[in-house]
């Protein structure tokens, strides 16, 4: 039986379970010195001076680096999705004249000793600030007299998309509704914070940087550029990464400063973020509100939508900051046919930590907004919410579907495959939708408020531009797979080995997967946007296919047969119809080992193949979540009862691991729906930058969970794979919010924002008419 599609145990786990994981902070080097960053305590201030004389007098200090000590003209890190119209409000490597958010790095201190000593001495560095008025919310930043984060305006850009004629269609619509839907700021908060170890090698005139990152190759390119070093002088290694979720998907200013410092100091430096620092200095996500006008008819058909979304992107543009604003509107209509759309997305700067994509970027807000709209329409026309969805959905016959509106990173939105109505039907059946209505009524008769809600989403996954895959067979029979994808816990080693084993028929245990090291993997992009299976996996599939061709060519001479008569089965090349006449892949690799003449027509002393796979466009996964909840109307507490997901991420390499991705995503979505919010005071002071006050879901917050898979393979890659990593996080907040609204429908409470903590729900009940 092929391992492809099988729920097998992971290659990664025994090592980690023995305590032999090697995460960033586990790495020790001889002569290591320790770094801390001095960060702004002000949300907005001028830097009037930095006096580090007291600190510098301490003999344990190795180096203090401020903006003045950096090479002149060092540019800020780029925002690679900036439009021509986007104002270039990028973050300096270290703040010089001005700080714009609490946590912005101002100086680097490196000491002999340990982190305790580094933090002691950091307290002696005196930065003289002149505080300025600050602004922390988008609404406040848009006010006419708002403090300015950068220059003449706090608006970085306004993105516009339109389809049809929304104004006319809205004017002509039999019914309309207008509402504001608010998604709060929250963040990935992986259990392992960021961290860096960097070692300068005098002999090589270069450096090795270990970083807890999703993108080692991007980080390498950044260091090559900022340090002016040749490619061969920079090696980046992502060791075991303890979760990432998008928070680690860009090179950060700290990595550049540490790279520069290592050359100056000539000794290995270690910096590990603490949790408070992580909340301030690692990127956040989401914070976006949508002001919508919707036109619909008495049958619940949505005729037109006008959406003005506003995103609070924080103090600076990061590498991919604009994804949140443009996906938030581009993907608004999700699975629904809406002929007239006018979408505006305003990007606003405030004195808060910058935004960058994290798990479900933009799609979460889009699904929350759209799915709440559908339920409001359903309630207004008195038709079942499931039925209203069916009436508005694209049928399964429309693919490939050119949406004709908006864009995602790779350009035009073209839905590749799916069957949305079937997905909805299956989710409603699994959730026992109709039966629940009876239960709900019985509960209401007892004064208890149960609710059920749907969260349907379509999600762009498998983002390009490319990923690398390389397969090499050793004469021992070992198969080494190199990938540019970079695991932060997803199980790359396992699934890429499954693909390779499937293509070559070799033993799973004979395969080793190498990733996260730029010296071992020549090129790569990294792991984000649910891309590692559809893009990285396809590259590996192609590379293994090339190995197959090469092996047959080499074996032709060994078996004295023509290549057309040979096949690769079970790790052996054999003559079709004559299975006893065969050579193993190991023997084939041995035949092209150096030190002997090559077979005729073969020109490589290796059994090794590389594929760089550029997907033609993105794959669009989708899914339907159905949540059931109970709301305590005295306290506003929402209790989750059950959460059903029917998910289509195309072909499954390992269902066990995909279940894990969906379940983990749902947990993150539950956090967003009920618990998590990064809070700031009006003047930009963080209010809950720790795990005591910022609540991530614990085991007791989890409902019973049911995950089912639909498999509609994409035609865009060989195995029909779409991305599976984020959908859990995308659909959950919409489903839970709809369930809460459904529970409170008889009481008239308006549910238009997340997180739905007790206070928010209680207020909604108080304000109910």
């Amino acid at each position, binding site marked *: 039986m092929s391992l492809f599609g099988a729920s097998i*145990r*992971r290659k*990664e*786990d*025994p090592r*980690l*379970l*023995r*305590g*032999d*994981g*090697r*995460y960033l*902070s*586990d790495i*020790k080097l001889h002569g290591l010195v320790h770094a801390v960053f001095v960060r702004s305590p002000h949300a907005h201030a001028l830097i009037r001076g930095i006096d580090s004389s007291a600190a510098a007098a301490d003999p344990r200090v190795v180096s203090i680096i401020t903006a003045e000590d950096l090479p002149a003209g060092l540019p800020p890190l780029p925002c690679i999705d900036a439009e021509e119209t986007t104002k270039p409000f990028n973050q300096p490597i270290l703040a010089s004249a001005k700080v714009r958010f609490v946590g912005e790095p101002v100086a680097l201190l490196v000491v002999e000793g*340990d982190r*305790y000593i580094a933090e002691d001495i950091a307290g002696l560095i005196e930065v003289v600030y002149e505080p300025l008025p600050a602004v922390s919310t988008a609404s406040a930043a848009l006010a006419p007299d708002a403090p300015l984060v950068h220059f003449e305006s706090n608006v970085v850009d306004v993105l516009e998309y339109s389809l049809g004629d929304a104004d006319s269609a809205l004017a002509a619509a039999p019914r309309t509704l207008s509402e504001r839907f608010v998604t709060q700021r929250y963040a*990935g*908060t*992986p*259990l*392992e*914070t960021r961290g860096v170890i960097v070692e300068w090698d005098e002999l090589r005139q270069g450096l090795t940087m270990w970083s807890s990152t999703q993108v080692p190759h991007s980080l390498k390119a950044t260091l090559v550029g900022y340090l002016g070093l040749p490619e061969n002088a920079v090696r980046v290694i992502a060791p*075991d*990464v*303890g*979760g*990432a*979720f998008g928070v680690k998907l860009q090179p950060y200013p700290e990595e550049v400063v540490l790279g520069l410092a290592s050359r100056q100091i000539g000794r290995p430096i270690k910096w590990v973020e*603490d*949790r408070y620092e992580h909340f301030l200095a690692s990127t956040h996500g989401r914070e976006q509100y949508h002001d919508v006008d919707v036109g619909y008819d008495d049958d619940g058909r949505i005729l037109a939508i006008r959406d003005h979304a506003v995103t609070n992107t924080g103090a600076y543009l990061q590498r991919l900051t604009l994804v949140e604003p443009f996906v938030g509107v581009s993907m608004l209509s999700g699975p629904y046919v809406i002929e007239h759309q006018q979408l505006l997305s305003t990007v606003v700067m405030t004195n808060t930590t910058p935004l960058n994509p994290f798990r479900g970027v933009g799609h979460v807000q889009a699904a929350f907004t759209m799915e709440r709209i559908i339920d409001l329409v359903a309630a207004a026309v008195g038709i079942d919410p499931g039925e209203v969805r069916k009436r508005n959905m694209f049928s399964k016959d429309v693919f490939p579907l050119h949406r004709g509106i908006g864009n995602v990173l790779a350009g035009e939105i073209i839905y590749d495959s799916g069957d949305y109505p079937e997905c909805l039907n299956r989710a409603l059946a699994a959730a026992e939708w109709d039966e629940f209505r009876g239960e709900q009524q019985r509960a209401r008769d007892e004064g208890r408020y149960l609710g059920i809600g749907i969260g349907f989403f379509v999600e762009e996954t498998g983002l390009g531009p490319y990923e690398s895959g390389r397969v090499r067979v050793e004469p021992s029979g070992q198969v080494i797979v190199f990938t540019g994808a970079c695991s*932060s*816990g*997803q*199980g790359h080693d396992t699934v890429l080995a499954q693909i390779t084993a499937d293509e070559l028929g070799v033993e799973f245990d004979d395969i080793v997967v190498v990733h996260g090291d730029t010296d071992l993997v020549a090129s790569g992009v990294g792991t984000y946007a649910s891309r590692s299976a559809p893009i990285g996996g396809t590259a590996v599939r192609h590379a293994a296919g090339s190995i197959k061709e090469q092996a047959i060519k080499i074996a032709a001479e060994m078996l004295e047969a023509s290549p057309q008569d040979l096949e690769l089965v079970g790790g052996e090349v054999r003559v079709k119809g004559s299975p006893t006449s065969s050579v193993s892949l190991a023997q084939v690799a041995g035949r092209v080992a150096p030190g002997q003449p090559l077979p005729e027509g073969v020109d490589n002393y290796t059994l090794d193949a590389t594929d760089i796979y550029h997907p033609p466009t993105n794959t669009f996964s989708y899914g339907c979540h159905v949540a059931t909840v109970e709301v305590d109307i005295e306290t506003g507490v929402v209790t989750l009862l059950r959460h059903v997901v029917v998910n289509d991420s195309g072909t499954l390499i390992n269902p*066990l*691991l995909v*279940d*894990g991705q969906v*379940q*983990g*995503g*749902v*947990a*993150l979505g539950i956090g967003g729906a009920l618990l998590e919010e990064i809070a700031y005071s009006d003047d930009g002071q963080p209010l809950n930058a*720790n*795990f*005591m006050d910022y609540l*991530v*879901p*614990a*085991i*007791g917050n*989890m409902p019973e*969970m049911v995950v089912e898979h639909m498999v509609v393979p994409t035609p865009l890659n060989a195995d029909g794979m779409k991305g599976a990593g984020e959908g*859990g996080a995308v659909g959950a907040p919409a489903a839970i919010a709809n369930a809460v609204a459904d529970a409170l429908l008889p009481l008239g409470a308006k549910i238009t924002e997340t997180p739905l903590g007790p206070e928010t729900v209680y207020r909604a009940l108080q304000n109910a008419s």
Partner: protein
Amino acid sequence: MSDHDVTISVNGLERSDSVPARLTLADFLRERLDLTATHLACEHGVCGACTVLVDGETARACLLLTVQADGSEITTLEGLTAGDELGPIEQAFWAKHGMQCGFCTPGFVMTISELLDDNPSPTREEIIEGLGGNLCRCTGYVKIVEAVEEAVSLRGGGA
């Protein structure tokens, strides 16, 4: 700041050292003894990633000072099962996909080991109650619960 002499039994080995009063037990284990399975994720006692056994009871190594552990017996993940073997809890995590990035896993395994020592056949509710102080950001906990149930069965507990 003068250092303090401590003698602590760690995974069955007696370790003597001289440490600053402020050195946390977690940093002592990780930095002085190279026992890096004890992970630090919040350093304020919330997430449970640094959970170890102190005299057989779970404790957060980030909130204990090394000097407080003087004279005690500490078990970390490295010492939970002898040699390279996986114990029943670790095997169960492997079998049930109870982990993804693995950063929280040592803390969970230590907590579960105490839980099952105290109650070899917990109900699902007791499992959830028992693991309430450990955070995982990857799995959504579903497969962690399944792993505990599997561990119960591998240890020969349960019905």
